[in-house]
């Protein structure tokens, strides 16, 4: 009994030692990610899409890999935009926007995919420090917020509305290993994804500790006629207005000619 216990202890010690050595010798794991395109085009019938991110984990310790000690989080952050949250209140029987809070630029969209639910991968403080996860997106109120007692209320409302509309979303088991060193992450892009420069961030965690991060840029653009119209409306606004009026007059004239009765 006692001997068995000693042998067990010895085994455990050597295992720990082996793990520690492995950890020390293979400290240079490398994470690499790739996407098939660095531009996503939104066409007129865009109803959301899946973005597949492939990645490789090099120099990984086979033992730790088998024990499932490596975790990967992939997140796509949308362009930073300033946000205003308004709250309605009843005034003289009518519901009007009464309170407002302005937030400093923060990602206008967020999609996350990971090997495990992120709070099981590492500690809150680590997630928060690296702004990983919907609840850790930095939302800082700007302007006068009084005593700040309303900040959590507005922040929660903002996160809740964005999660409900699908513009912020996370898939806790969206990253899967296809071989010992290759993984595939599936990110859901919502139909209302904002155009602009998005940032793809991939994080490697080893035994619940942060190991490394890789970033890629991804542009979301409107294509074809939609983009042409959007750009014209914003860059050549006056011309666009004239065009809208000309179109209306043409339609009206055609209508009165085609259906002329007198």
């Amino acid at each position, binding site marked *: 009994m006692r001997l068995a216990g000693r042998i067990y202890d010895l085994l455990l010690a050597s295992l720990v030692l082996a793990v520690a050595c492995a950890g020390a010798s293979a400290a240079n794991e490398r994470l690499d990610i790739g996407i098939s395109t660095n531009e996503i085009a*939104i*066409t*007129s*019938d*865009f*109803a959301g899409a899946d973005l597949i991110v492939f990645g490789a984990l090099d120099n990984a310790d086979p033992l730790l890999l088998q024990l499932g000690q490596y975790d990967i989080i992939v997140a796509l952050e949308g*362009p*930073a*935009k*300033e*946000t*205003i*949250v*308004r*709250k*309605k*209140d009843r005034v003289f*029987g*009518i*519901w*009007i*926007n009464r309170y*407002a809070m302005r937030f*400093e*630029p*923060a990602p*206008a969209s967020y999609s996350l995919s990971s090997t495990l639910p992120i709070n099981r991968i590492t500690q809150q403080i680590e997630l928060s420090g690296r702004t990983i996860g919907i609840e850790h997106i930095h939302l800082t109120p700007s302007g006068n917020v009084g005593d700040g007692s309303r900040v959590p209320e*507005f922040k929660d409302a*903002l996160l809740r*509305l*964005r999660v409900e509309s699908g513009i912020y979303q996370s898939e806790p088991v969206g990253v899967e290993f296809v071989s010992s060193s290759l993984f595939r992450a599936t990110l859901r892009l919502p*139909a*209302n994804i904002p155009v*602009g420069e998005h940032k793809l961030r991939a994080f490697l965690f080893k035994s619940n500790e942060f190991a490394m991060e890789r970033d890629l840029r991804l542009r979301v653009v*409107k294509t074809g*006629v*939609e983009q042409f*119209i*959007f750009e014209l*409306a*914003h860059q050549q*606004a*006056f011309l*666009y*207005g004239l*065009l*809208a*009026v000309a*179109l*209306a*007059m043409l*339609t*009206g*004239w*055609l*209508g*009165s000619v085609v*259906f*002329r009765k*007198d």
Partner: protein
Amino acid sequence: MSIYLPIAELSVNAFIILGMGAAVGFLSGMFGVGGGFLITPLLIFYNIPPAVAVATGANQVVASSFSGALSHFRRGTLDIKLGLTLLGGGLVGASVGIYLFTLLRNLGQLDLIISLFYVVFLSVIGGLMLVESINALRRAAANKPVSLRKPGQHNWVHRLPFKMRFKRSKIYLSVIPVIVLGFGVGVLTSIMGVGGGFIMVPAMIYLLHVPTNVVIGTSLFQIIFVTAFTTIVQATTNQSVDIFLAGLLMIAGVVGAQYGVRVGQQLRGEQLRALLAIIVLAVGIRLAIGLVVTPDELYSVITTKEGF
């Protein structure tokens, strides 16, 4: 068939938009109105952002009023001089209206003010029209003569200075009430996205005593320019004119209007006015309910300019 609207930045069903355009076009042909006061609330009910609905509504009215004014021009039932005087006030009013529009949008009260304007104007105009048309129907049933305008009867409007002669309308009138009327309707055009015919026409008949036969043509004439101006300024300052949306509405509207005209010709004037009054009141009540009923969601989020 879903179609992406580049300015409203959302996908809509193209057939629903075409259906709305055709239905409103039908009604506008039937009643001889621009239809802006129906298009804008319908678009808002269909979740188009109110700012886009208003600016696009104004654009759509350009098409329907241009089509209507052309046929009035051919028939000679259009007083260009009176129209231009109204237009003078109208352009100033539209500019003031757009300034207010941008201000309210920044304050986050635009949607509320749009709804309030609609509720107030639609209820008042709809109510007055309903009462007037029911009385007319009663008189017609009792075989009494129906007269809208009592010539020779003057009111305070005709005692104002700066009088001018409007030949086509055969009236001699101060320019002050004309410009003020144009101004007021101009403000409404930019805030509500309407042509304003539903206010302009009764005001011209009852207040200015313009002969009924030139009223609609002249009102349409000035509406073309005020809505065209509003469209261009909205496009430049707020980038809220959606040309896709407007195009769909216009095409369906122009076609729908032709069938509306045919049906309208088979109904009597009082019946038409009573029907229109009921529709106007119904839209007003629907908007009023939206203001009073507790909303499902108290919070709203808007993203503004790009950051870093």
